[in-house]
């Protein structure tokens, strides 16, 4: 068992590595403002003459005008975003401002003059990874911080797999009307679970996939958008289970999903199996726990109270942990 001090040391090591990376990046990009943009964003690498201007693009692609008059990119108020009216930000420093269509599609003059589709960045012909590189040249803050190397990034799920600038059907430029519909394209069996007898309020519209998951990457496991592990994530909303308790139930402290399926279950309280049999997967080999709880007892014995209704937790109601001095068996 390592100490808390060791944990801190590891954190410090990660911090040092991060600072080192920043230093490397800083050294490799220590350029004048005019050269600065040459690092990662293709559009501003080109000379001015390579750009056609948004108006030129719309001469042919007039069906795309909504993207720059109504879409979120049209109202990106921050300097540095495609349609921000601040101009090309002091010789391109950190900006795609006012580049319009060419902020994402690259310099288009050659394409406009020749009509050659190969001379413009067409997202439909890019791999998801390539497309994501364009998007992430701006969208890398906060919830996008962990995109690189994340589960979706690793499986060639890119920004354009889920989002569309020009043909969105749902909020946040989603390609489908709802998150559930979108996510179900790959996670069908998970989405189906929300229809089960015991479920979170997803099908009622009170929660959605991103209420729990940051699909763009996360520090926590399972793309959970907060907390440090599964349990510490769940207690963000179920803070009454946070404790710490005088008497912990270790599997609860370690991982809520040992007993609960948060996506839905056929059992009350979204348990992964029906009680008392779930409890008997561990508590099975002495005194009253290994009793065979079956129909005869249900009809003839006071042991029925361990089978019907709340089953084991009618007595062991503090199954998530007890703060009572006499609560070792989670009875108080």
């Amino acid at each position, binding site marked *: *068992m390592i*100490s*808390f001090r060791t*944990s801190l040391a590891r*954190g410090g090591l990660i911090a040092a590595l*991060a600072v080192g990376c*920043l230093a490397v*990046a800083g050294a490799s*990009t220590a350029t004048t403002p005019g050269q600065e943009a040459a690092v990662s964003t293709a559009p501003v690498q080109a000379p001015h003459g390579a750009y056609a201007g948004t*108006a030129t693009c719309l001469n042919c692609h007039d069906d795309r005008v909504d993207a*720059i008059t109504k879409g979120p990119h049209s*109202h990106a108020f921050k*300097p540095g975003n495609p349609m921000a*009216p601040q101009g090309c930000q002091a010789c391109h420093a*950190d900006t795609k401002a006012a580049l319009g269509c060419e902020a994402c599609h690259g310099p288009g003059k050659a394409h406009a003059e020749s009509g050659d589709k190969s001379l413009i960045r067409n997202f439909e012909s890019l791999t998801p*990874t390539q497309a994501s590189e364009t998007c992430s040249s701006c969208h890398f*803050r*906060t919830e996008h911080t962990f995109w*690189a*190397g994340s589960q979706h990034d690793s499986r*060639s799920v890119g920004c354009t797999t889920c989002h569309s600038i020009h043909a969105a059907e749902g909020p946040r430029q989603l390609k489908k009307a709802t998150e559930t519909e979108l996510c179900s394209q790959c996670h*069908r*069996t998970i989405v*189906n679970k929300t229809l*089960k*007898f015991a479920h979170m309020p997803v099908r*009622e519209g*009170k929660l959605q996939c991103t209420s729990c998951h940051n699909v763009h990457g996360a*520090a926590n496991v399972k793309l959970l958008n907060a907390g*440090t592990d599964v349990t510490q994530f769940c207690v963000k909303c179920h803070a*009454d289970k*946070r*404790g*710490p308790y005088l008497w912990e139930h270790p599997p609860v402290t370690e991982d809520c999903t040992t007993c609960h399926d948060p996506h839905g279950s*056929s059992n009350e309280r979204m348990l992964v*199996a*029906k009680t008392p*049999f779930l409890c008997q*997967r561990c*508590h099975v080999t*002495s005194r*009253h726990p290994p*009793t*065979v709880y*079956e129909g*005869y007892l249900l*009809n003839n014995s*006071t042991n029925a*109270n361990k089978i*019907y*209704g*709340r089953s084991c937790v009618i*007595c062991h*109601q503090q199954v998530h942990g007890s*703060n009572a001095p*006499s*609560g*070792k068996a989670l*009875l*108080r």
Partner: protein
Amino acid sequence: MRNRLMICTAALVLASAYLAGAQETPQPETTSGGTIDIGGRFTTTDGDEARYERYRDLRDGVPANFFYKKITPNWTFDFEATNIGYRDQHYELNLNSKRVKLNAFFDQTPLNYGYYTRTPYNCTAGNCSLDLGLRTQVENGNAVGVPQSVGNLVTGSVYNSIANPFDLQSRRDTIGAELRLTATNNLDFIFGLNSYSRSGNMPLGAGFAFNDAVEMPVVIDDGDTALSAAVEWASHQGMFHVGYEHSKFSQNVPSYTFDNPQRATDYCVYGNPAVPPGACYDPSGYVNGRGPAYGRMSMAPENTLDTVDWMGMVKLPGKTTANASFNIGTNNQDAALIPWTTNSSINTPAVWAAFPELAELPRDSAQMRVNFALGTATVRSRAIKDVTLTGRYRFYSRNDFTREFDAIEYVRFDAVPEETGGNSEPFNINHNTLDVDAAYTGIPYSTIRVGYGYDEYEHGVRTTQGWQDNTARISYDLIGNQYLTLRAKYEHTNRDTINLSIAAIEETGSQPALRFYDEAARTSNRGTFIVELNPLADLGVNFSLSTGKNDYAGADAAQEFGLLDDKNTSWTLGANYAPSGKVNVGAEYGRETYTTVQESRNANPAPDPSWIDPLRNWTLTNDETVNYFNVYVDLIRAFTNTDIRFNYDYTDSDQSFVHGGPRIASLTAAGQFIPLPNVLNKWQQATVDVRYHVSKKLGFGLFYMYEKLDVEDYTAINSAGPQTLPVSALGAQNDTARIDWLGAITTGYAPRPYKGQTGIIRVFYEF
């Protein structure tokens, strides 16, 4: 000369045209508008109305929704209000400008348990009381309190006479806000608030003895408030974010006292040789119910969580990106502790002489502190053409700094003092994960990835020191092809335990051949396969399959008891046809199967001979089969000015519990075994949403929802059925609850069927 003039003129015209074109670059528009949606709702329900509503408020009335949005070149604003005035109302606003980005919301979400539920208890915050006169009758043997025999079931509990139906429901109110202030092009300040409170009642159990348990509708009044502040710096080379959050969980009902339905007074009879001289409790009180007049339990304690975190991302040369984070937090809990017991027969000098530790608590409050730390570091590089390399390291630790709490002497069920307790132990966790992956993208449309993962998990208190996972995985993804999308993945994991302690298992009173499945050695295999075919532009067919198996017994030859293996398979097949923007139809079928096998020995601890008697072994095979079906039809303006959306969802579950082994054979031979019936449920929902647009601004709508749940579950005890011998709990399912059954008084809350219909006639006006 004329030619030159013409050329110059033409050039000027073209130039001016170009300039004009440049000047005509579309600019963001200023628009505003919204929708008022109001109507009349009518709901009818047969059966379990609360289950039909569950997280919704579908009462008759006038549901109203409002939406407004304004967009200008400099800012946007939107506001949304849904289900105004109902228990599931929601309000949200967003403001977005150059310097300020604000999101704020208020939400109510009900949790409806049952409207048929009944209870003899009168519950207020911190106390659930029972009629003293009836308790006295029961104590004196003049009435049945908690049924103890089949004969008692026929008579019924005396508490039925005062158990009236009530709405068992609670509600969660949440308010949240995030404010992002942009100080400079690179620097943001972010402030957050998230606060929820819970109110109402929830069912909670309590026991006085093995044969004397109750379920009460306890009053809940708690909540959590989290405040956060962060600074974020970003440029095109990377970003850095550092933040702080304080969260406080507040508990307005720190403990509960609850009356014993079997007793009006604490059991006290002197002269029992099994108890210390001068003491009067019954040492078998937790078995026979001769315990306290009332008990007391501790509710979720107040606590705080403070965290500081940072995260950063940097783009490096060679198409390489690195990100890292670190989070450190402290969870403090110092709630006042309730006494060892409320039982006046135990809180006496005579008992304290024999159990000196029970005279006072080791400390008055919990005095608990737990620290958390999380660190991650990920590097992804595409420095080599067509190859992506990813490495990720993650560690997590939970460090418990709480002093041990000595409870070797304690009081069980508020009924019996014992010396069989123990000391609390600090529960620590260290979790280290390393994943490395390599992906090759040189084949058109394809990504082939291989990876390896090492996962080491260490913890205290348990029967192992932890476990180590070694995982190999391979995946293939084919995407971007207009006719075919394919994703496949296979993963194999070997889990080995770290320092499995047989002694620790035996200390829990368990057989040495037991393994706890969440930390046991196992071999896991898991595979997923998804294919989507688009033979025509307007037709899509998809199929998915996933299957997995965890083999515990096979990974540890010494394991005999506990969960031996589990496996699951699920597949779906669906099709979608959208011949135009006006018509979209589709259907899908899915099926899941789950199987688990567990084994036990029905035994008392050694030296009882049952401890080593394999004839007392029994197994349980728990199978479940789940079916899904969905069909939908969307007709958007397929008919004049009319939108029609139809959707139907269906799911059913069939769960069986098959006991086996020599113990079952002997019980069967003795006429003391009745197999539990399968637990079944079938849920279906159909919705039709029709909207007719009279004009661009005005429309009428009709919404209809039909929902039905059929359920058969032996855990629900019905009031209907034979009231003469033999009484059977295993009757046909119905929606009327019986609150008095063998060994307990409950609220009757359980899975019960319903059929609900809701219709809404609405008018919507767009402005």
